[in-house]
């Protein structure tokens, strides 16, 4: 019996997925668990694996295609089985029609609504992210680990997304663009307020449609070099005038945009800044690394900042909390997100229960998470569900900045560079290594004094690391 392969929801906020590569071709024999395809979601590249065995009968989308979650993308079956019913009814653009697995005549005879329900139930069974083990997939559907807004987003239709993005388009123009397979967001609108109207779509169709979607950024391209080299790029090497360029938003960039608007809009932010003397903390790190040198583990400044934050959170549970509309949810462990820059965005892998882990363990876990984040190999559960986040731009020479809270966390700590500067101590000017941090707080959860007391603890621990064990 034929098995549908559908675009699985591989992350809680995923609404559509882009096929990076088919790992099989039509005619291949596959068995349960084989990797069928690699898919770019809004967060990471993930694999879709076969949930049953058989012959790959049809691959319905091409590499580079973007389809909505639930869309039919392939069919597995017996070599001589008639699958025309399945394939003919499949239009990747048809929206969130989820695919079912085993279909017989009786099932096909059901009304369209019944089918949709059945299919939705079957969708999870038909495909699942590779690497997610069975018990986890069942016990903890990813959507439940996320706050309510995300769950709602996951069900949002393309139409809703567009209206949130404020693409104005007449209903006719929208329909014409869909029929022609054009991305409405790429068409210039000539109507009132930039509304895309019939004549605009006609012009786009006649000119052969907007340019083909650009290739996704190259994986493995130099990740860090771009920023500093751009900063110091010689004027002589620069062309007379750079070309205007439109960079299409990746799935990740779209998600970042949506999530941050969700934050700075509804979340009432306020900001607290303090300057911390890092001398002793840096000495401590040096001493630790000398002790750990044999083990191969190296503790970074960020690991220290994370450990201290976790400890401070344990002592101030009112910061390690979330606004739950009619309550404040305090979290039992300090799960700390680390903002990691990746080529086309950022992602925040989470060090779990950092308040109960030692520095060496934190350093090891963080280094592994960051490396996999840069290769986009994180699993959803590794970058969701933080209770507090740290963002460090010190390596770019930033003195201080404000970060935007990643809901439902109630605070994020923005860390600037550590610089030697003159400080007055006991009436004398001395040189000290100083670092400025700014905490963004969700005022619904944290009041000014609450946040200030937390920062006081944080600073005290860094300035006198003995506090860590006191």
């Amino acid at each position: 019996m034929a098995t549908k392969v559908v675009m699985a929801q591989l992350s809680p906020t995923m609404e559509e997925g882009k096929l990076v590569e088919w790992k099989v071709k039509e005619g291949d024999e596959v068995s349960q668990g084989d990797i069928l395809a690699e898919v770019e979601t809004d967060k990471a590249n993930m694999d879709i694996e076969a949930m049953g065995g058989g012959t790959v009968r049809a691959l319905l989308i091409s590499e580079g295609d973007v389809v909505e979650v639930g869309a039919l993308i392939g069919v597995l079956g017996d070599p001589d089985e008639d699958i025309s019913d399945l394939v003919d009814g499949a239009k990747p653009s048809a929206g969130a029609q989820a695919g079912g697995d085993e279909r017989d005549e009786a099932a096909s005879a059901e009304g369209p609504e019944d089918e949709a329900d059945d299919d939705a139930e079957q969708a999870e069974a038909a495909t699942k992210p590779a690497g997610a083990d069975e018990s986890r997939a069942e016990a903890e559907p990813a959507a439940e680990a996320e706050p309510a807004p995300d769950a709602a987003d996951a069900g949002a239709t393309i139409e809703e997304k567009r209206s949130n993005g404020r693409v104005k388009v007449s209903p006719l123009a929208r329909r014409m663009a869909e029929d022609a397979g054009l991305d409405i967001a790429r068409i210039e609108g000539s109507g009132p307020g930039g509304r895309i109207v019939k004549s605009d779509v006609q012009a786009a169709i006649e000119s052969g449609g907007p340019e083909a979607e650009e290739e996704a950024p190259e994986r493995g391209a130099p990740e860090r070099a771009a920023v500093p080299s751009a900063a110091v790029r010689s004027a002589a090497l620069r062309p007379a005038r750079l070309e205007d360029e439109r960079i299409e938003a990746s799935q990740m960039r779209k998600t970042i945009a949506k999530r941050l608007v969700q934050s700075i809009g509804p979340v009432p932010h306020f900001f607290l800044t303090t300057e911390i003397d890092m001398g002793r903390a840096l000495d401590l790190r040096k001493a630790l690394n000398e002790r750990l040198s044999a083990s191969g583990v190296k503790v970074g400044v960020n690991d220290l900042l994370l450990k201290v934050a976790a400890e401070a959170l344990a002592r101030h549970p009112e910061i390690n909390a979330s606004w739950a509309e009619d309550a404040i949810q305090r979290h039992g462990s300090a799960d700390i997100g680390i903002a990691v820059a990746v080529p086309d965005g950022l992602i925040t892998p989470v060090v779990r229960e950092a308040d109960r882990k030692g520095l060496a363990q934190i350093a090891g876990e963080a280094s592994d998470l960051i490396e996999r984040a840069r290769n986009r190999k994180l699993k959803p559960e590794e970058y969701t569900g933080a209770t507090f986040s740290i963002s460090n731009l010190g390596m770019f020479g930033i003195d201080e900045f404000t970060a935007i809270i990643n809901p439902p966390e109630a605070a994020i700590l923005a860390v600037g560079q550590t610089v030697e500067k003159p400080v007055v101590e006991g009436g004398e000017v001395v040189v000290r290594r100083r670092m400025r941090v700014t905490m963004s707080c969700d005022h619904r959860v944290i009041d000014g004094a609450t946040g200030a007391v937390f920062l006081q603890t944080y600073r005290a621990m860094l300035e006198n690391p003995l506090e860590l064990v006191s």
Partner: protein
Amino acid sequence: MAVITYREALNRALREEMNRDENVFLLGEEVGEYDGAYKVSKGLLDEFGEWRIRDTPIAENGFAGLGIGAAMAGLRPIVEFMTWNFALLAYDAIVNSAAKMLYMSGGQYNVPIVFRGPGGAALQLSAQHSQVPDPWYANIPGLKVCTPGTPADALGLLKSAIRDDDPVVFIEGELLYNVKGEVPDEEHIVPIGVADIKREGSDVTLVCHSKMVKVVTDAAGILADEHEVEAEIVDLRTIRPLDIDTVIESVKKTSRAVVVQEGSPHSGIGAQVVDDIQREAFDHLDAPVARVSSLDVPMHYARPVEKHILPSADAVVSAALHVCYLD
């Protein structure tokens, strides 16, 4: 195909139906000796006698009620109001008696009656005598409302109205009575509830009825001659029941619509049409549907102001260009 006036077409319909069915009779102010205030019943008294052509006192509620009673008793009365403004005095009879009788008698009594007369603005009749009664009656379940805009439709619809077994409100136009048009020589019936494409076009649908058929036809000419816009004109002809299917078909073809009515904008027939369009043809629209109507004021006596208040061909042209994104 003879060319006759709207007035003559109505007169022909009355004559043909009175000849066809002896239960049909006409009553109203000055319909007999004076041949009707607008001469619609010209010659009928001589032809059918005062038993079937009855002059009445100036008592609209009274003779409307008399007609309703006669209809319940099995006759087919035609009640002429000198204008629909005067019929406000008979509103209770029309709305509470004629429109409700079939329902409230549990189907025992149907009321095969036609109420007819001119509605809308004529020339300098001021606030009380220039009103457009269309939505007052189109809002009432139990009534049918005909609003012909051409002589042929006046003939065909009045004959259908007289033959209908339920109360029909038949709204003519004082300024339409002298309008000429081709009318078939043979028997001509226009069914109630069927709209008519008065002009085919590809770019914008202009929906209208009654006197606005002329205004919209003029506008379509300007659009074609000066703007290369081919308008399709849908004449509703009957506003209750409303033939929305014809409107939707046209809008699906043109993707744009302007709905024109003579009456004031609030709760007008145009609002109903726009509501149907946005629900039934949403995915086909390339622009919000536009409306053209009178200004939302009582009609003014002064001629230039009256002209300013009423919908004009120029206003229809502007609205059409707007929905075509050509303004």
